[in-house]
């Protein structure tokens, strides 16, 4: 540390390093979470990078359908599908939350695929006023329009689930909402954003929002004290996200996830492996995913892969759509070199 006081960033990095050393590589392999498929012995992970210049409803439906077809999506026919958007907060000036029009396009797509039940579910992190948030962000109207259920996960019924490696962390078990536990298919649909505590927030970080506030508080401080990178890996290692769609049509750069500024990337990033999707989205943002603590940790414990050579990207070329998101100076080290 060169004799300087430890910064928050140093602290987070130190916690992440310490946590990884306590995790055996296969710690998460036997869990119900993200599978440990690593393409060295299997097929490449598939991610779709779908151009989508705006939130025109017709274009969104086409883009979601195209991305879905060119990846390995879950079979949703006859299934109970839970969609987890990111509604961290609402601002009329800043694009904090996943755009409801994109989520509506996904719902329409799932209906054509004959999903039995579609549920929208979110547990906002620090603002307890979910009625207000759901209304202002357009999700209340969306749910009514599409006839789907909208659940506040912060106040849902909960059940304890053993963490996949209970010796590794402070949390021996996670209390998870029954709405999520009873889902056949979970789809994470986050906003593409920078994050002042985690570097970036995409599909894996979005799953923080499934943890119930009644048990973990607002913000979910228990997890912060447990270490953000480790908590992200723990949640994703314990509970599988079956599909991810990152809303990069308009993301947020700078001092995200609440106070940054709008940044258009004009893409959707889609796939069945959340880590591969996040790594690809990071590259679109001009960020080296290997420098993001929790992505590196997730790779190490085999929640998928972040390596370019393990991921087949369908659709657009990453370099062509790369939009270097402005980084908070504390996170300038995340920037990937050009070319």
């Amino acid at each position: 540390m060169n004799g300087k006081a430890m910064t928050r960033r140093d602290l987070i990095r130190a916690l992440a390093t310490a946590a990884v050393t306590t995790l055996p590589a296969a710690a998460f392999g036997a869990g119900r979470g993200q599978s440990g498929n690593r393409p060295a012995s299997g097929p490449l992970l598939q991610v779709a990078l779908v151009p989508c210049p705006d939130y025109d409803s017709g274009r969104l439906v086409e883009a979601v359908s195209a991305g879905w077809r060119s990846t390995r999506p879950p079979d949703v026919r006859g299934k109970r599908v839970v969609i987890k958007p990111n509604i961290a907060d609402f601002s009329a000036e800043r694009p904090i939350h996943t755009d409801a029009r994109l989520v509506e396009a996904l719902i329409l797509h799932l209906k054509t695929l004959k999903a039995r039940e579609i549920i929208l579910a979110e547990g906002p992190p620090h603002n307890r006023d979910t009625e207000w948030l759901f209304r202002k962000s357009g999700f209340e109207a969306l749910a009514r329009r599409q006839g789907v259920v909208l659940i506040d996960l912060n106040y849902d019924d909960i059940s304890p689930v053993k963490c996949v490696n209970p010796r590794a962390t402070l949390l021996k078990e996670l209390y998870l909402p029954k709405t999520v536990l009873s889902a056949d298919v979970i789809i994470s649909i986050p906003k593409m954003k920078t994050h002042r505590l985690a570097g970036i927030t995409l599909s894996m970080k979005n799953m923080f929002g499934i943890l119930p506030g009644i048990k973990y508080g607002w913000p979910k401080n228990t997890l912060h004290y447990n270490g953000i990178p480790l908590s992200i890996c723990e949640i994703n290692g314990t509970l599988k996200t079956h599909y991810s769609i990152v809303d990069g049509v308009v993301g947020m750069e700078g001092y995200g996830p609440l106070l940054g500024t709008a940044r258009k990337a004009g893409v959707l990033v889609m796939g069945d492996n959340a880590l591969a999707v996040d790594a690809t989205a990071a590259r679109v943002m001009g960020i080296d995913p290997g420098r993001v603590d929790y992505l590196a940790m997730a790779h190490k414990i085999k929640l998928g892969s972040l390596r370019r050579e393990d991921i087949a990207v369908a659709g657009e070329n990453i370099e062509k759509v790369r939009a270097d998101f402005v980084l908070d100076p504390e996170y300038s080290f995340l920037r990937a070199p050009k070319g």
Partner: protein
Amino acid sequence: MGLKKPMLNPSLSQALDFIKASQNPDGGWAYRPGGESLVEPTAFSLLALSSRGDKTAVGRGLDFLKTCMKDSGAVGIHPQDPEGSWMAYAALLAFHALGAAAEERRLKDWILRFEDASGHFTPDDIKAISTVYRYDASIRGWPWTSNTTGWVEPTALFIIALVRVGTPPTQNRVRSGVSLILDRKVPSGGWNFGNPYSKSHELEATVMSTALALAALGAAGIPESRPAVSAGIGFLARGLAGDVSTASLAWTLLALRSYPAGAAQAPVVAARLAGLQAADGSFRRNLFETALASLVLDDAGALLRTAWRSG
């Protein structure tokens, strides 16, 4: 059990019918009908129902609430919760209103020992937090869960409950909680969950956090002449011009009744809140919100005993 005489207002009576019909077989209440029994909705349902003198339902609910108490006196979110947490504030109010004196005393003692992280922060932590968020992390308040950061809303809820059961505002923990709330005020007026700033950015206040903070400050006897209080009341007045949720309206009504300056606006807010009641008597089919709305639309006596009301 300290039950009051039956209430006559037909709308509120309908709300109580909804609450009574939603009682679970274990005696408790969930946030939503048919869900699992939890401490906060159970305690508020009991507070609401106690106004009608329904001894059977209230007795079963009180029994459920007592099963949530640990040997330490702690109350968590439900009987299986291994530790105490923020919902204890609601249980304290219910134990007091229903005359469960032994449980009230044990729970109050536990709440006064329920710690946030302020005692664990190093001087460097406190300095770093002060730099980024511009608040004093050494001030002791109440957290949502044990030994994590103290925030505005749980601190306010515990102050409201402690003062309501007779804890003097001069008590050390209450005074410290008041200091935390005052320290976390947003410069432009009001409160949010507890970060006035993040680096150079001033964060916005919210109606719910502001209402809770003001209700707590009012309960603790902080006068409206204090700039933070008057600015908070001003923020609420501005906030009421926009979209406000059911729970926020209910807490706002409680806050406005805590101060003479706010009381003038209370009838309008009460009418607005009453207008949100559904045909089935509920507020959004949420048991906690239905009970809260019933209580604040009645006279809020189960929740508030403020200096200016009693004096």
